[in-house]
């Protein structure tokens, strides 16, 4: 083992990979380091990798005072969790019907689902905005959540997964007198947990990070999601007070990064698996 690690090729490999890793992490490192610096060390004409004077408390307190960061984070949690819960609630029964029931028009419905996967959310933002405007639900939590409650990709993914579940399992459940609706939640759902988890990771990361739609859908600061909140904070502070701004940015990305570090494999699988749509 030692001989392998010390071979010239392995040393070169680690040298290159570590260099690239350092470059990739630089924006994160610099963001965190800056969030620790006092104003006087931020506007310097030389590189200072570590502050001489730590201003952690000052910067983070200022960030939390000037922007309702807790509110933003809370909104992020509310919106992402509700979106995923509703996506699952709506997609699982539909996926079960498409995979396990025989009925007139099934192929047409499935074709419709496939077509809906192709529609990028940004392309239909204008009519959805007008629809919500006329329905009077712009600038509410509903405006942030409703457009994403239907995930055609989620239906497709779950349907593909349900096809692999043996029919015998469904038949046995019917014999036991479980209703079709009960089969979805008590028989199919438990078998689908891995696929649903992968989809959930993808859904939550995508909607936590989404900027385009929340930017359009809400105006009130108390409804801002983390990305819109931090962008607004930046517009107010533009170029003046980088310490608190970097502190706010650090706070905004921290939850996802920590979750990622705790479950790296799940995140990578979930995002690449579902992100390929």
């Amino acid at each position, binding site marked *: 083992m030692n001989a*392998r*690690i010390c071979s010239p090729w*392995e040393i070169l*490999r*680690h040298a*290159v990979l570590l260099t690239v*890793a350092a470059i*990739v*992490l*630089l*924006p994160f490192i*610099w963001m965190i380091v*800056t969030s620790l610096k006092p104003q006087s060390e931020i*506007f310097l004409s030389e590189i200072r990798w570590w502050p001489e004077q730590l201003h952690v408390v000052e910067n983070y307190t200022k960030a939390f005072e000037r922007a309702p960061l807790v509110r933003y984070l809370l909104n992020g949690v509310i919106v992402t969790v509700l979106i995923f819960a509703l996506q699952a*609630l*709506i997609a699982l*029964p*539909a996926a079960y019907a498409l995979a396990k*029931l025989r*009925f*007139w028009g099934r192929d047409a*419905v499935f074709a*419709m*689902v496939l077509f*809906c996967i*192709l529609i990028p959310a*940004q*392309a*239909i*933002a*204008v*009519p959805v*905005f*007008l*629809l919500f405007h006329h329905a009077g639900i712009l600038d509410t939590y509903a405006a942030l959540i409703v*457009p994403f409650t*239907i995930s*055609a990709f989620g*239906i497709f993914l779950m349907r593909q997964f349900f096809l692999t579940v043996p029919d*015998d399992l469904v038949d046995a459940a019917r014999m036991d007198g479980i209703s*079709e609706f009960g089969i979805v939640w008590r028989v199919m759902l438990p078998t689908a947990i891995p696929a649903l988890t992968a989809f959930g990771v993808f859904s939550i990361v995508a909607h936590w*990070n989404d*900027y*385009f739609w929340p930017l*359009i859908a809400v105006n009130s600061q108390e409804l801002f999601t*983390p990305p819109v909140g931090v*962008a607004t904070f*930046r517009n107010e502070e533009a*170029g003046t007070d*980088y310490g608190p*701004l*970097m502190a706010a*940015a650090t706070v905004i*990305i921290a939850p*996802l990064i920590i979750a*990622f*570090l705790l479950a*790296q494999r799940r995140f*990578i699988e979930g995002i*690449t698996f579902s992100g390929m749509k």
Partner: protein
Amino acid sequence: MADVALAREIDANIAQGARPHVRLRRRRMMSMTAAVLLAPALVLMALLLIGPVLAVLLMSFTDYQLGAPTWSLVGLENYIELYGDRVFWTSLTNTLLYVAIVVPSSIALGLGLALLIESGSTLRAFYRSIFFIPVMATLIAMAISWEYMLHPQFGLINLMLKEIGLPAQAWLSDPVLALPTIAAIGIWQLFGFNMVLFLAGIVSIPSHLYEAAVMDGARSAWSRFWLVTWPMLGPVTVFVAVISAIRSFQVFDTVHVLTKGGPSKATEVLLYSMYSEGFEFFRSGLAAAIAVVFLCFVLLLTIIKARLIEKKVHYS
């Protein structure tokens, strides 16, 4: 297992023998169940996806403006206006240029790093995770960090350039540099995603192919790469290229926060044009026409991808 099959057959025979109206009723029951299970999904799909797609097409032929008392059909007028608009052409070429920079670079980086990670046995998961962090970190927050790093006077990048004796650059306010700088952030964000897809592709190459290549005299890693790895990764690479192109087409966040399409339209991109027409000037008809153009490009790429998936399934 045979018993189950037998039992099923008997069941089926009984069902066959059952009186026709009972069978019909059973089938009708199933259709009813399916309708109930599918109803929420169908309603929402119609209301939030298919309806809006049709609406965006229709709106692109109207002069609809939010807040205006009336609107009328104007035929192709919006498209004619776009055709004659220099800013729209700038926006389209900038978007294509952005895609043309980000796609090959993020593929090359993703593939190179995947090969390098797989060429050894130590710290593979560690590197994979590090390179994946930008994919999932909130891009808006990271764009703000990049903005400070790119600050002309106090930014880390220019300070580093100064250390090695190179001149400072106005990365985001120089019309020549602004788009490549936005593209560089795009590459930084995307390559980790491509790397993971390549890693999966490399792992799935059967090792006997490499053994055969060695027996055929491919002694160096270099010749084995060209003989085995690259041809075997061909389909994955095309797939990754299409996905990266679709993602790059949707560039918006960095432009909106860092440059607002400037300086002098140097970073104006399709989604940003659509956003400003639709949600800043509320010229919904024109915004819809831009959305249709955007939709055409994305659909074209998606159709290419679907064809590729079909092929892959067919071969396996």
